[in-house]
């Protein structure tokens, strides 16, 4: 049964194609096929969607809602308190401290990690001698748990006894409590984070470098370009999408990974190593002030959202999710 009146005058030939398309769409069989695509698609997606909504989208929204309520304690249920939690946060010196620490930490860890990762990748991609050893030593920290890494470095830093103090001792320096000192503790953690992650991000650069055409280098050599010039004008610009990807992931890691802080300093001394997520963890699971912890989480989510939007705007032109 076609949707056209058979008694009508014959349409001019150029309309045939259009009519064919319309009648094809209107065929019950065609409609059913399209319907099943919708149903199959959603059925396939459903299990993952349920878990994603439950453990990512719902908690993100609930965090925001909870930040406007008080923490339920005992018989007392949560009451709407408006912006009280935010006011408390603005007046909380530890929050500012943690946020400041996190900014210093991110601003140090990210550029150093990315620069080292690029350097490592260029070395390993080249013809340097001992490449297998280099690759192994750079990448090994990646497969270790951060918690193990932190324990090893804790030993490294231990005053008087650890390797660092022993080396310094050879030069006549006195023992130094690296992690117990307000001025050095955060730097010590920064070193650990760089050591752990540089080899991981090296992999992304290595993958990108291996996809680059060797003819580029040959052409540049014919033109007499120096290696530094070639790197600056060809390699580095071509690696820009990788750099952006690595940068964003390194920034996320600097807000997400606090295992080493739990092991090495517990935020001390005097909160000089408390990062934002560590403070959230303390407020939420030591002081059990869940509403205030949710308020702090909102700040963290806002920072990550800014990052997400930034990436979206930046990457949209370069990487096509096709």
């Amino acid at each position, binding site marked *: 049964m076609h949707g056209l009146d058979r008694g009508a005058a014959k349409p001019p030939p150029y309309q045939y194609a259009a009519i064919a398309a319309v009648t094809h769409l209107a065929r019950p069989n065609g409609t059913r096929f399209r319907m099943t*695509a*919708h*149903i*199959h*698609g*959603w059925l*396939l*997606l459903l*299990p993952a*969607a349920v*878990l*994603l909504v439950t*453990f*990512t*989208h*719902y*908690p*993100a929204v*609930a965090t925001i809602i909870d930040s406007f309520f008080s923490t339920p304690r005992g018989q007392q249920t949560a009451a709407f308190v408006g912006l009280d939690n935010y006011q408390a946060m603005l007046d909380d010196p530890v929050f500012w401290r943690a946020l400041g620490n996190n900014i210093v930490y991110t601003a140090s860890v990210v550029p150093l990690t990315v620069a080292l990762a690029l350097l490592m990748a260029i070395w390993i991609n080249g*013809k*340097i001698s001992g490449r297998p050893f280099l*690759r*192994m*030593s*750079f990448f*090994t*920290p990646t*497969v*270790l*748990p*951060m*918690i*193990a890494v932190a*324990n*090893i470095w804790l*030993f490294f830093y231990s005053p008087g*006894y650890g*390797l660092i103090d022993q080396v310094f001792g050879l030069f006549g320096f006195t023992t130094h409590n690296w992690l117990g000192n307000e001025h050095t503790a955060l730097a010590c953690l920064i070193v650990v984070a760089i050591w752990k992650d540089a080899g*991981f991000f090296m*992999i*992304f650069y*290595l*993958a*990108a470098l291996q996809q680059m055409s*060797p003819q580029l280098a*040959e052409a*540049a*050599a*014919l033109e007499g370009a120096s290696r530094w010039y070639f790197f600056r004008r060809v390699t580095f610009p071509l690696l820009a999408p990788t750099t952006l990807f690595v940068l964003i992931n390194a920034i996320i890691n600097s807000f997400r*990974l606090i*295992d080493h802080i*739990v*092991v090495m300093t517990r935020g001390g001394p005097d909160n000089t190593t408390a990062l934002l*997520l560590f403070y959230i963890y303390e407020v*939420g699971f030591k002081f059990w002030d869940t509403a205030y912890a949710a308020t702090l*989480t909102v700040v963290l*989510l806002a920072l990550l959202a800014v*990052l*997400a939007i930034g990436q979206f705007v930046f990457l949209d032109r370069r990487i096509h*999710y096709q």
Partner: protein
Amino acid sequence: MNPVHQASPLAAALETAGAWVLALLWVLPLTYALWAAIHPSAYSAHFVLTAPLTVENFVKAWNAAPFARYFLNTFLLVTMILAAQLVLCTLAAYAFARFDFYGRDIVFLLVLLQLMIMPDVLIIENYRTMGALGVVDTIPAIGLPYMASAFGIFLLRQTFKTVPRELDEAARVEGAGPLQVLLKVYVPLARPIYIAYGLVSVSYHWNNFLWPLIITNSVSTRPLTVGLQIFASSDQGIDWSVITAATLMTSAPLLISFLLFQRQFVQSFMRAGIR
């Protein structure tokens, strides 16, 4: 670096030296830990070649905490997460790659959101949810937030999209339903990606710490990382030799398999990294 650029021999030598110094710095912490673990405590910070070797530190560590149980817990956890991820991500990726359903693009963006806002930062609300579900202090509770992995969905979707439509249609003509096509055509073709994703997932969850620390509080659920931390922070008289032995022991399975299958590891991580 490339074959054609000829740097001066001196510069090349300096560069090689730089790379080696960095590499040695990079292995130093681990070698140091290994030294402390296989020598008696008296030698843990005293480096002489005649220091006697011992396995006693490992024995002490093994007996001081229920590490066998922790190993079992981590093994169960990692297996459970990987199995769930493989099934869930495969189905979802197939939907995104080959089905034209209502709201596909917006839903895909919502999935990608998890790449930014990972479960690691939603600890407060997820703990509450686990409480409501009555699963606090169970192994599935450690894994649940990670099972629908945006990274896995994204990776597999990219792979499935490269499968030629003709293969898909040929299978359908022969009467295969959507699930059969998935299992017979798509999954076998994506094998290298599955291996890559599996390695990345296993090393991530073997090493994960904060969420397991929060959600577990008994020996029968704690994974290795949490067990190690409790062991190391409780009063061991700060015997570094024993602590480093325990540290190496908990990392050993991943570390040893990495050292044995280095090339595959690096290749897999690279494959997972290219998008």
